[in-house]
């Protein structure tokens, strides 16, 4: 196997970011919500490596704690979406018939809703909280996975090993869980990796609009809320959280790209 540089670098970046997120209490130089009125909007310096915000809170510490929130929202939202997509997709693909038409028509309908509109409308009804954001992003993001899984299963189920499993009397759920889904894992994994990136982007956009993670909880998007009022005064508040998002999304996209190459 030729060394897959894109995949390895992507995995490395995400590994580092996850470690930082896990070890946040040990790594962050300050308490992320510690208000220091003696250094408001301080530019990056040795004392505050990435500067401070308008309440004097250390930006680096907030970004480190923000990594926890943003990464976990991305991962859990993707997990929910992939789980639902797998269930619907495999039922539609394996059983066909009415189940298939019903599920796929439902997918068509949900796909008509502009995702961002749908999410905002739901946020307006339920209060925005970290759990709600994860669930909402997950519930509005499974349709692509369902279509993908269905397609994979449609082509897999004609293969000999599935016929053999059927011949020895394996039940439908067993065939789906033990034989079909493991063989469709590659494309689903690529799709899920892209899903994490998409969920993190969505969360940052929502939080930036004030409809996602609520201040003072730091997520990369909610830190950026302040950048609108400090534009032209404190460039560091705009630059660094955005760079954190960019690097993360880039790394997940690199993993997806690299995985695609591995699968062939």
């Amino acid at each position, binding site marked *: 196997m030729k060394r897959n540089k894109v995949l390895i670098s992507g995995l490395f970046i995400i590994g580092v970011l996850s470690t930082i997120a896990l070890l946040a209490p040990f790594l962050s130089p300050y308490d992320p919500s510690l208000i220091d009125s003696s250094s408001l909007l301080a530019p990056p310096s040795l004392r505050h490596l990435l500067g401070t915000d308008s309440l004097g809170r250390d930006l680096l510490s907030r970004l480190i704690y923000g990594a926890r929130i943003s990464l976990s929202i991305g991962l859990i939202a993707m997990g929910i979406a992939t789980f639902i997509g797998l269930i619907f997709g495999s039922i539609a693909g394996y059983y066909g018939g009415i189940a298939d038409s019903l599920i796929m*028509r*439902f997918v*068509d*309908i*949900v*796909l*008509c*809703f*502009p*995702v*961002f*509109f*749908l999410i*905002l*409308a*739901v*946020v*307006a*009804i*339920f209060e925005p909280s970290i759990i709600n954001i994860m669930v909402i992003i997950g519930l509005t993001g499974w349709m692509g996975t369902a279509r993908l899984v269905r397609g994979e299963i449609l082509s897999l189920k004609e293969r000999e090993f599935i016929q053999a499993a059927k011949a020895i009397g394996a039940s439908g759920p067993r065939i789906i869980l033990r034989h079909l889904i493991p063989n469709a894992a590659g494309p689903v994994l690529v799709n899920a990796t892209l899903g994490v*990136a998409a969920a993190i*982007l969505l969360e*940052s*956009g929502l939080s*930036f*609009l*004030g*409809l996602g993670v609520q201040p003072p909880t730091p997520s990369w*998007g909610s830190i*950026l809320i302040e*950048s*609108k009022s400090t*534009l*032209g005064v404190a*460039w560091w508040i*705009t*630059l660094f*959280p*955005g760079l954190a*998002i*960019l*690097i993360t*999304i*880039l790394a997940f*996209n690199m993993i997806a790209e690299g995985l695609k190459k591995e699968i062939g």
Partner: protein
Amino acid sequence: MINYILKRLLSIIPLLLGITLISFAVIHFAPGKPVELQESLNPKVSPEVRLRLQKLYGLDKPVYAQYIDWLARVAKLDFGRSFNDNRPVMEKIAERIPLTLTINIFSLIIMFGLAIPIGVKASLTPGGKFDSITTVILFMLFAAPSFWLALILMQLLCINLNLLPISGVVSLDFEYMGWWQKALDIGRHLFLPILVSSISGLAGISRYMRSSMIEALNQPYIYTARAKGLSEKKVVYKHAMRNAVIPIVTILGLSVPGLLGGSVIFESIFALPGIGRLFYEAVMTRDYPLIMAEVVIGAVLTMFGNLLADIAYATVDPRIRYKK
């Protein structure tokens, strides 16, 4: 062709029913009906407004009757009145459409105008210098949150270089300008929003164009064209590109939901009074009739976008419409 169009038109009926049913369900089965929620969140709601709301949603009737009533009104584009200022929702939306439409049309033109040449040029030497550089740049742009790019460009162009106005549609002295000054003024205000919203779709479309072009260049008819001694220019632009562009037309129809979602963010950042900002304000103030109207209209627009994409595709590629 007519058969194909008719078939596609018929298929939108269940979609329309599904869209309205889901929209209705979202608002209806929300914890706390809109009327109660509105009351608890907005103390300004008077008993009179409350009564009208109950009538609007027909809350005294069974659920299916409420849905049918609501559907009948929606079919006449009657989405009720806004909670905030009591004006008809459709009127509020209609006056905001021209701005959002203008921004999106221009950004689509820029998006496709840049993405197609980039994709074609990259496909000619895959792995070459141009391909590698544009791939890296586009990958970065694809990973950057678009609202962050907007903030960075605002900082650079509007504050540091002081080249462009920072927000709004017109300057304060707009009234006293000549017509060409007015046009220039609007152009200067909309330049950045259009630029940023065109960047967001650029990466995907040019990558798509590139792979579509690479595929086209490996088709047998390209060998034929080369074998009969056509110039490389003719082979690339006349034979390969015309075929490779076909799948791109479908993206045009499919980009509706992305553009609508983007308009919420950009119009909020740049303080532009379009339908995106209207939706944002509606969400912030929990103006349910307005939220419902925009969700339904957004979904229907997306559906027609898909429909147009399919029909356009079938028009330029006969293979589609003869397939079962």
